[in-house]
C-alpha cells in the first residue's frame, strides 16, 4: 500500500482524483497481484454474507450456546415497528441490524470479521440500513467496504484491532471509525471529511476496555455493536455538517495506541476485570463452568 496514515491516504486520493474506496481497490489489486475485478468480486461476496447474517439475526433463533444472549435484535426491531421509539427511524434500524449480526456471531453463525468478530455488527448495521434508505446498489456498498478497509488498515498498522492487545476501543472503536468514514464518503463527503469522521468517532471510544463476561463474545459485546452503529451515523453526520476533528485523526489513533498499551491485562480480553468480575459476572462464569 502506498499510504501509512490517514492524511497520506487523503493526499493520495486527491492526487489521483479517486475516492477512498476506488483508491483502496487499486492498491489492493497491486498488492495481491489479482485483478481489480477479482478483488471486487471477493468483497461483493463478503457483502452477501453480511446481508445473510442480518437476515438470519432478524428471523432465526440466535440463542447462544451459553444461553445468555439471543433475539435482542428481534426485540428492538419489533419495538421500532410497534412502539414509539425515541431513536427510531434509520438509526433504530441500524441498531437492530448491528445487534442481529452480532447475535449470529455469538451463536457460532457465519459472519465477516470487520475488523474483528467481536465488532462484526457495526459495519453491516450501518451499511444495510443506509442502503435501504438511500437506494444505493450493491456495487456502491462494495466501494464503501473498500473505503472502510482502507481506514481500518491504517488503524491496525498504527495501533491495534484486537481486544487482547488494546481493549474494546481497538475492536468496536475501530469499527465505528471505519463505518463513519465510509458512510461519510458514500453520502458525498470528500476524503478529508471522511477522515474527520474517523477521528470524531474514535475519540468517543478511547479507553473502552474489553471485559467479556465469562470470556464470551456476548456481554457486553453485542449491545456495544448496537450502540456503535448509532455512533457511526452520528459521526458521519457531524463530519458532513462540517465538524472537524481538531486533533487530527492520525494523532487520535496514536492516543488509542498509548491508552491500549497502558491498559492492564485484566481489561484486555482475559475476563479478569470489568464487567466479567462483577458479582453477577462471576456468578455467570461459575454457572458456565459447572454446566460443562
Amino acid at each position: 500500500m502506498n499510504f501509512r496514515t490517514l492524511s497520506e491516504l487523503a493526499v493520495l486520493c486527491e492526487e489521483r482524483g479517486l475516492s477512498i474506496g476506488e483508491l483502496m481497490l487499486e492498491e489492493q489489486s497491486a498488492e495481491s497481484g489479482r485483478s481489480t475485478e477479482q478483488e471486487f468480486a471477493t468483497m461483493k461476496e463478503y457483502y452477501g454474507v453480511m446481508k445473510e447474517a442480518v437476515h438470519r439475526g432478524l428471523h432465526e433463533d440466535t440463542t447462544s450456546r451459553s444461553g445468555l444472549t439471543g433475539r435482542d435484535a428481534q426485540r428492538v426491531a419489533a419495538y421500532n415497528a410497534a412502539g414509539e421509539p425515541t431513536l427510531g427511524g434509520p438509526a433504530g434500524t441500524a441498531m437492530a441490524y448491528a445487534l442481529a449480526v452480532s447475535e449470529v456471531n455469538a451463536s457460532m453463525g457465519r459472519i465477516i470479521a470487520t475488523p474483528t468478530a467481536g465488532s462484526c455488527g457495526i459495519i453491516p448495521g450501518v451499511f444495510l440500513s443506509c442502503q435501504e434508505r438511500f437506494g444505493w446498489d450493491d456495487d456502491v456498498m462494495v466501494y464503501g467496504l473498500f473505503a472502510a478497509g482502507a481506514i481500518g488498515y491504517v488503524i491496525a498498522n498504527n495501533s491495534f484491532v484486537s481486544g487482547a492487545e488494546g481493549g474494546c476501543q481497538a475492536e468496536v472503536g475501530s469499527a465505528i471509525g471505519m463505518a463513519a468514514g465510509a458512510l461519510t464518503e458514500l453520502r458525498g463527503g470528500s476524503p478529508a471529511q471522511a477522515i474527520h469522521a474517523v477521528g470524531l468517532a474514535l475519540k468517543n471510544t478511547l479507553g473502552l476496555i474489553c471485559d467479556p463476561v465469562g470470556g464470551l463474545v456476548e456481554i457486553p459485546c453485542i449491545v456495544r455493536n448496537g450502540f456503535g452503529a448509532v455512533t457511526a451515523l452520528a459521526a458521519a453526520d457531524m463530519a458532513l455538517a462540517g465538524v472537524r476533528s481538531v486533533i487530527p485523526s492520525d494523532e487520535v489513533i496514536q492516543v488509542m495506541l498509548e491508552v491500549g498499551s497502558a491498559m492492564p491485562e485484566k481489561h484486555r480480553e482475559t475476563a479478569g476485570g470489568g464487567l466479567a468480575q462483577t458479582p453477577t459476572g462471576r456468578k455467570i462464569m461459575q454457572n458456565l463452568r459447572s454446566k460443562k
Partner: protein
Amino acid sequence: MRFKDVFSIIGPAMVGPSSSHTAGAARIGRAARQVLGEFPGIAEVTFFGSFAATYQGHGTDRAIIGGLLDFATDDHRLPDSIELAEAGGMNISFRQGTGLFPHPNTVRLHLTGRDTGMELTLTGTSIGGGNIEIVDIDGFSVKLTGNYPTVLIHHMDYLGVLASVTDVMRRGEFNIGHMSLDRKNRSGAALTVLELDEPATEALTGELLGLPAVKSVSVVDLNRKPQEQEGKEETP
C-alpha cells in the same frame, strides 16, 4: 506492516464468535497441519495469556483442532471438530501454559504425525482480526503469516545454500516477498522461510529437495482451498 491488505481488515469470512480466538486459532492450527504435512496422531495444545483464560468460551480449542483437520475459518464443521478429530484417531490434550509468552494470544502445539511419527513443535500468535504470526517452529525463530504461499526449507547451514535456493526461485519465476533464515549454530541445522507471490508447485518443492544440504521442504498456504471431504470423512 503487520497488516498487509484489505482482506486482513474486512474478513475473513468465519464461523463466530471471535476473530482472534476462533478464526485466528483455526488458522494457526491449519498452518501447523500444513507444516507437519500429515494427520496428527497426537496433539498437545498449550494455551497462554488471554487464550488460556477464555479458550472454552471462544471455542479456541475447537478452532485449533479444526485447523489441524485442515478446515478453513468458515467451515461449518468447526464447532464439531474435536469429535471429528477423535473419530479419526487424534489423541488430544489441552493445557494452560505458564512462563513467558510472546503475545496475549499465544498457543504452542506439539504434534506427532500419525503415519510417520514425525514431531513438530510450533508456537503461534493471533494478532487480531483473524491474522496470525507463527513465531517459532522447532526452536527456530520465524515470522510467518500464512497470507502468502510460504515455503519452509530445513537445511544445514552451509555456504551458498541461499544462493542455490533463490536461483531455483528465479528460474521457476517465483517472486519472493519476504525471507528469513535462522540457524541453531554455525554449520548446524537451519530453517529458511520464504513468502512467495505465486502458489508453490510440486515441481518447485521437488527441485528444492534435490539441492545439497536441504533436508525437508514444506508449504503453508492458508488461502488454499481445503480438500473437500468426499462422501466419507477423509480421516482428514
